[in-house]
């Protein structure tokens, strides 16, 4: 069909040139055209992403302010939601089920222990949950404009980091209220947060790719995350609970304690709470934190990049 129309057109096709003998691929090569929608190399992808760093920051900040724009209390909910959660857990797990026993440093440490745990776990939890919708929830943007898609999950985990930093103000107030004043060990929250941020970003990237293919994950993930939360000792001390109450074998305790959420919570509590000593930390906890951060962070990035050309389809 196209063959016959080629000759007849006037003014919209070039006159005969040596180019006519070239195949489309050679012609494209001659004028520096590239295959549309091809995936860039990993190094090129990182470079593109770096070029969009302002977009990533602006996007996460915009999402943060938009998140509660329909609520009357606005930004207050950023802190109020985890606090309300912590209150519920305090009554159910702390008072009713006796989760306070075995809290490192004594039962008076339970509330700082619980609130730190809730805030730190919420950081990972919301990164994962929002990561599922990073691509599928921004399809309009993905289909309209071209930018490295990893910007979206990365800005989601950045948004959660900003939110956590706001929550930290409340956390510090609670800590001081319970007699835990700032010491040098508080500085340890920075390496911990860096590792956790890396881990969360990787998780958000992984979930974004999975969620763009399987939207059902948005329904499934809340259950998986709740199981993860109960299994990581957010509202009770993990080791005493497993060893003394459930009589779990030692290797099982080690495995549960090595899970990233438990590792990051342990380190944050160790940094913040006075009675929480290094004896309460599982072995090799810093190596585990760094390992999880690097493994999931880099692995998630590569995993996401592998599918870059396929986001936003259908």
């Amino acid at each position, binding site marked *: *069909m*196209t063959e016959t129309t080629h000759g007849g057109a006037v*003014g919209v096709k070039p006159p005969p040139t040596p180019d006519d003998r070239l195949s489309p691929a050679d012609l494209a090569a001659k004028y520096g055209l590239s295959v549309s929608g091809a995936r860039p190399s990993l190094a090129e992808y990182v470079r593109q992403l770096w070029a969009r760093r302002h977009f990533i920051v602006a996007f996460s900040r915009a999402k943060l302010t938009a998140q509660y724009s329909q609520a009357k209390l606005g930004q207050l909910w950023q802190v109020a939601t985890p606090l309300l959660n912590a209150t519920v857990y305090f009554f159910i797990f702390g008072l009713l089920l006796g989760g306070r026993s075995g809290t490192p440093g004594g039962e008076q440490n339970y509330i700082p222990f619980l609130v730190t745990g809730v805030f730190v776990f919420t950081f990972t939890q919301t990164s994962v949950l929002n990561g599922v919708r990073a691509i599928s929830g921004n399809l309009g*943007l993905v289909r309209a404009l071209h930018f490295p898609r990893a910007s979206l999950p990365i800005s989601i985990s950045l948004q959660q980091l900003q939110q956590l930093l706001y929550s930290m103000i409340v956390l510090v107030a609670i800590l001081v209220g319970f007699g835990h004043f700032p010491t040098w060990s508080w500085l340890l929250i920075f390496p911990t947060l860096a590792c956790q941020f890396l881990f969360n970003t990787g998780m958000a990237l992984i979930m974004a790719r999975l969620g763009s293919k399987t939207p059902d994950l948005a329904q499934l993930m809340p259950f998986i995350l709740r199981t993860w939360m109960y299994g990581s000792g957010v509202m009770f001390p993990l080791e005493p609970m497993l060893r003394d109450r459930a009589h779990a074998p030692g290797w099982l305790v080690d495995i549960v304690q090595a899970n990233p959420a438990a590792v990051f919570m342990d380190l944050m509590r160790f940094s913040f709470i006075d009675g929480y000593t290094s004896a309460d930390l599982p072995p090799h906890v810093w190596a585990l934190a760094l390992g999880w951060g690097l493994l999931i962070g880099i692995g998630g990035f590569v995993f996401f990049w592998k599918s870059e050309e396929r986001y936003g*389809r259908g």
Partner: protein
Amino acid sequence: MAVAEDTQEETKTLQQQAGAPAQQEPWIPTVIAEDLHIVYRVYGGAKGKGSATAALNRIVRRKPGGGSVREVHAVKGVSFTAYRGQAVGLIGSNGSGKSTLLRAIAGLLPAESGRVYTNGQPSLLGVNAALMNDLTGERNVVLGGLAMGMSRDEVAERYQGIVDFSGINEKGDFITLPMRTYSSGMSARLRFSIAAAKDHDVLMIDEALATGDKKFQRRSEQRVRELREEAGTVFLVSHNNKSIRDTCERTLWLEKGELVHDGPTEEVLKEYEKFTGK
């Protein structure tokens, strides 16, 4: 490259005939489509997607490779080459594959077979391409600009131009309201203004010019002309033959995923109008 003198002369006269803008280097290809086929795979398109028993049934009885996948062959072997400074119209009845073809050129849909080569990254501007509805128009302008790869300074520099072009603020301070409060015409105008603020090598417009009032249509047609003069290539999908006539000198006519006719706009539109019985 060595081009014979007489060839260049010929090129110039041809361009003058077609009314194309003067180019320093004539006939540089910007988009090459080579025997392009696009197939959509629709999962569970057969029946009973909503009912739980049907869903279970599908999971339990899944044959290897998936039983309930339907294939829709939307574009069948389209080849063409578009050149710098050209405005190309795409016409055809509903469901003939126009938008699909545009999305394939933009690299948003993978080709089943064949290839599309483009110069730089083509940008597709569609009516349904929503930005972020819960953010203000202001934020959308900034974010859209940053996402397209402008620097902060460039965005700040062009911000006023974008807002003025969109005409959002003509009837009061609407740019500081969330985009969900905009009428569909207003948000389409803002989207077009954001995307048109950058000089694209290849810009594709999917019926966006149809939205907005007369004044805005004139402004956007003017902007399309400017983009062409800046050595870009513009593709325009429209059911409005007049806007194709006004903007494009070349037109592709697609029907059932096949390229029926590719030639000067007048010639193709005449046949198309005969076909549609106008």
